[in-house]
């Protein structure tokens, strides 16, 4: 089709037929916005990128100290720092993505009210930024494994699958909260609370195996339980068992959250410019 023959129709309530094609056309914007956020974050800081290594590392130290040394929780034949870090990695990814995506539309309000592009680009690129952080702090996990001489078994090949689930969870929750935040600024206060609260109700500092069996399915309603358990399972291999019913429930919830998130976002995005 010749470019000049393109016909665009603007109507009330018309969902744009070319939305996904537009999203593809603006694919460079994902990367450029993510690149901007990464570039800007560490400008005028002294240690720069080292911050994204230092923060998870210190959190890991504290968690190891509190849950292993003081609370004396079991470590399932794996060095406790590795147990903590294999959960901290997906949790921090989720928490950062959730926060950044949730505030992304408000922070880019000016762009939304002046230029057209598929709005999905903004929260998605915020998730991508958090994913880059996730990859960087992944280096700490590798360093810990070398330090303790720990060798993961074949389960590790499943890790990309769990990363994908973590990504879906972050994206789904991020889209929901980003769209809601435009209309209800209450989410400004809800976001930090969810992140703080989630850290304690998710099995980050401890293994979810210590949760009594009869409660485990209920516990898995928190979708991050499935994601974290999956990470642990693939990193710690045969030392832990994956609680399948709970895992399936979590994955189902993540999928639902992602699909409804995209739907709600699509439905509300046409009015963002009027509300923001």
């Amino acid at each position, binding site marked *: 089709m010749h470019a000049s023959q393109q016909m665009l129709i*603007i109507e009330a309530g018309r969902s744009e037929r070319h939305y996904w094609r537009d999203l593809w056309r603006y694919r460079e914007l994902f990367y450029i916005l993510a690149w*901007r956020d990464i570039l800007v974050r560490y400008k005028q800081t002294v240690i720069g990128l080292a911050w994204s290594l230092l923060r998870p590392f210190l959190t890991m130290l504290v968690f190891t100290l509190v849950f292993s040394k003081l609370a004396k929780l079991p470590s399932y034949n794996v060095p406790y720092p590795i147990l903590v870090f294999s959960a901290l990695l997906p949790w921090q990814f989720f928490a950062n993505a959730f926060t950044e995506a949730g505030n992304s539309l408000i922070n880019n309000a000016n762009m939304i009210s002046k230029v057209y592009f598929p709005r999905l680009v903004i929260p998605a690129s915020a998730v991508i930024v958090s994913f880059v952080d996730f990859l960087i702090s992944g280096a700490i996990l590798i360093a810990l494994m070398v330090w303790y001489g720990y060798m993961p078994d074949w389960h590790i090949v499943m890790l990309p699958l769990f990363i994908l689930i973590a990504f879906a969870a972050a994206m789904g929750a991020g889209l929901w909260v980003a769209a809601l935040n435009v209309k209800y600024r*209450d989410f400004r206060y809800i976001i930090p609370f969810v992140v703080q609260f989630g850290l304690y109700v998710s099995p980050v500092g401890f293994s979810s195996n210590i949760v009594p069996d009869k409660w485990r399915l209920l516990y898995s309603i928190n979708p991050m339980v499935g994601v974290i358990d999956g990470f642990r399972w693939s990193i710690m291999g045969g030392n832990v068992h994956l609680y399948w019913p709970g895992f399936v429930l979590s994955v189902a919830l993540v999928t639902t959250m992602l699909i409804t998130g995209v739907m709600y976002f699509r439905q509300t995005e046409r009015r963002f410019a009027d509300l923001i």
Partner: protein
Amino acid sequence: MQPAISVKNLGKRYTLSHQSQERYTAIRDVVTNGVKQFARKLQHPFAKHSYDPAHEEFWALRDVNFDIQQGDRIGIIGRNGAGKSTLLKILSRITEPTCGQIKIKGRISSLLEVGTGFHPELTGRENIFLNGAILGMSKAVITRKFDEIVAFAEVEKFLDTPVKRYSSGMYVRLAFAVAANLEPEILIIDEVLAVGDAQFQKKCLGKMEEVGKEGRTVIFVSHSMPTVTSLCDRAILLESGTVAKIGPTSEVVMHYYTNGLSSPAMIKYQERHPGDSFARLLSASIKTGSIVEGGAIEVSISEQVMVEMCFEILQDTAIQFVPNFNCFTADGVCAFYCHDTNKHQLGKGVYISRCYIPADFLNATTYFIGLAVSSYQPTVKVHFYDENCLSFNVYDPCEGVATRPETMIPIPGAVRPNLKWEINKL
């Protein structure tokens, strides 16, 4: 041929909320409103639709219809709140209409602001790529046009400096340079030229004219009538959300003026008088020998034109007041400046000052007059200056016009004076 843009029955409704100052909703309000409405239902179960004083409907645009042909350069004019920005936002797909339909043929780009998404911490180079991507240019295109953008913006030396250290002029130049290199088939421009210095504005206008001449459709919103007149061949006048007039620019611009309180060729200041504590402008008009009432909007090229201003001197001082004005053509070129060469030491009172522009002096175009009273002793002072406050159109009847050679071609120039010539045989 199918129009490039066709707008049918377009409308946009906003709900004004009188309760909260902010546009977003708090869950608290949603809950309390829900409870209130439920309680009202309990009290009056059969009431159909209760009027809610907290929310009022407001139509920013209503029943807007027009077609724009490919290659047209259209100006959209209207007073503040007439719906210009809303129309642009709908055309640019930033917000959706409440009703109606728009059909757009071709790639469309809009420029509602220069430098959207510019980040102050990033360097000029980085911002070019960022802004380009936001406007929908691919990285390959930006790379190809990079040198052109930098040259247009004149910021070669500061490419690797964060833009927060740029002067505001440099910032605007860079931002505009990126946008000017967009290559859409339809370009929508909001009042972005109001920023930047005069020289750069001229450069931008030149670039935009180029865009129009390449057969692209341009939609341009501006408050500056000279800019609209010079840049656009057709115009749309919006008045409280509806199309009041559509047609050739000069006609629409005239309509815009004549429909208001004052005509373009006559203005009476009612509340806002330009001026300081020494002098203030009361009224002004353009007159000819034949037209004295209401101001002469259309003036023949072989008629004498009188510029009349009525002003008030508010204090008895030794200041010598000098009435003066400048005259701009529609291209934004200053055709001439002139002042009263006699010295007047004016006491308190109301004065009328008249200046006669001779016949066979002006060219056939639209002129904009800016009136002023200044004083040069003891210091240079402008007591008032009202830019483009009067305008009139000079037409050339062609028959029997002294300044027209025996041909029908348009004659260039800001003025076309009938000067004294001599020829002697040596």
